């Protein structure tokens, strides 16, 4: 599974680069517009190792951000699952925050929280939590009458139990979404770094962009992709392990 993910990523990446190279050759473009193989190779030698370190740094924040956003999504999803006034209020709030482009509220966040690690983490989590939230709200607001009936009748239904029942019945959907959201945690962290940080791969990408250095960007994309494939592979494995333990 993990290996498959990795070589599939390599295939996709190579395909993308190949496509760019074909355009380069066909339209006879300079290295500035689309870098050639040699320029790419030079960049790999130049910054490859540094980017690995940067990506790992980003991954570290992303992992924390993901945990945080799973927490946020569960929290809001559980609060917002009911069709009550309060439920809808929470949802309206959560949805609105998401609609604002992060760059627009970043200044406000920085004013409120300073511009340390916390702000960055929050930005990453805010980008990542939303898809999780949508799924969680969807799953949590759909009753499973055949299972819940007994507990309701006997007055045993607590919100914890309700959440547990609905999570369990939708376990595979939840794992899909959580594994997928790793992607967004990564993207979110990169965006946060892009806006505000002075470390991580997002920061390196920003510098490469300012220098119009597409070769470096391609190297960065490669590092991001391969790291993410591995991370998701691991998450998936953990997910299926959890499923096994819980369901048996």
């Amino acid at each position, binding site marked *: 599974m993990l290996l498959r993910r990795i070589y599939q990523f390599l295939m996709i990446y190579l395909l993308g680069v190949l496509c760019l190279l074909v355009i380069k050759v066909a*339209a006879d*473009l*300079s*290295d*500035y*517009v689309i*870098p050639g193989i040699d*320029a790419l190779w030079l960049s790999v030698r130049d910054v490859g190792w540094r980017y690995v370190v940067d990506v790992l740094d980003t991954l570290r924040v992303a992992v924390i951000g993901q945990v945080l956003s799973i927490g946020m999504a569960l929290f809001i999803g559980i609060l917002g699952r009911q069709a009550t006034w309060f439920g809808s209020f929470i949802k309206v709030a959560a949805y609105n925050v998401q609609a604002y482009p992060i*760059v627009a509220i*970043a*200044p406000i966040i*920085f*004013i409120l929280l300073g*511009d340390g690690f916390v702000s960055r983490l929050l930005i990453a989590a805010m980008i990542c939590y939303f898809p999780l939230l949508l799924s969680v709200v969807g799953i949590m607001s759909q009753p499973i009458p055949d299972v819940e009936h007994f507990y309701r009748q006997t007055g045993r239904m607590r919100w914890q139990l309700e959440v547990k029942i609905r999570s369990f019945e939708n376990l595979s959907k939840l794992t899909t979404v959580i594994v997928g959201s790793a992607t967004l945690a990564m993207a979110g962290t990169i965006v946060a770094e892009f*806006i*505000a*940080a*002075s470390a991580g791969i997002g*920061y390196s990408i*920003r*510098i*490469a*962009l*300012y*220098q*119009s*250095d597409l070769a470096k960007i391609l190297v960065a994309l490669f590092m991001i992709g391969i790291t993410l494939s591995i991370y998701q592979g691991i998450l998936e494995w953990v997910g299926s392990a959890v499923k096994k333990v819980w369901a048996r």
Partner: protein
Amino acid sequence: LSADQAVSYRLKWLINMSTVGDVYAEAQGLFASEGLTVALKPGGPERDAIRELELGHADFGVASADQVIHALAKGSPVVVLAQLFQANPLQWIYFKDRVQIDTPADFKGKTVGVTFGKNDEIIMRTLLARAGVPESGVRLYSVRLDYTPFFSGRADLWPVYINSQGVEIGQRLEAAGERIAFFNPEAHGVRFVANSVVTSERLKSERPELVERFLRALLAGWQSAVDPANTETALAAVRQYDRDTTLEVLRAQLEATRPLIQSPGGPAVGYIDIAAWEQTEAMMRQYGQIDRAVDVGRRLRKP
């Protein structure tokens, strides 16, 4: 004369006071009188005029010197037709009540905002090196879109474009009772070329008359735009696009733009300052922005 020739012109940034000459030429029909129909395309953060020249999406464009030198280092066939800014508008703003900066040596112990990877980083590093301030002597603070770190005092100096943001933010701060000042690197001998008009080598060699006509109209536009006699026309031209800036601010911005384009008794509008270009290349080389000499002088249009 045959029917109007259509060309497209990619600016470096959104249309504001830094593009006053471009919109002036367009609005006053200077292009038309050279038989040209010019599609004026605003630039933006993800836009790159030089790439578009190569891809054939644009015929002319505006790029900063560092972009040109980066592109040359990667083999892009770009040539410089004119240098719009004789002085680089990039300066550092600071609160007079908090810090006192007279010479680069005063940066010692300060926190200075720079955009890592952009030309302000190079300029600041050159300034510091020349003043003998060691890397450890200042804290460089990574600049982002918002000014919070500067406003809240986490950074002492912040880079701004003196003729646009500088005017706007300066006014706002002064209205709030703050006393501000700007630090100008050029006053301390660091000359880093800013916006210039570029085109592709092919267009220049294949259609020299087209290039001449375009350049004539454009420079005439800039010439008139900075002429105090045409102030109202120039303001109207910019205001047509830049609706977010009040007329009062625009007026001040135009005032601030004039000396950057043409100083009294200085060279003509569009003059290419070869020495400044060579200094720019040298600085970029020194700070590893390019890995080989590009001999930028050869890519500049001969007067």
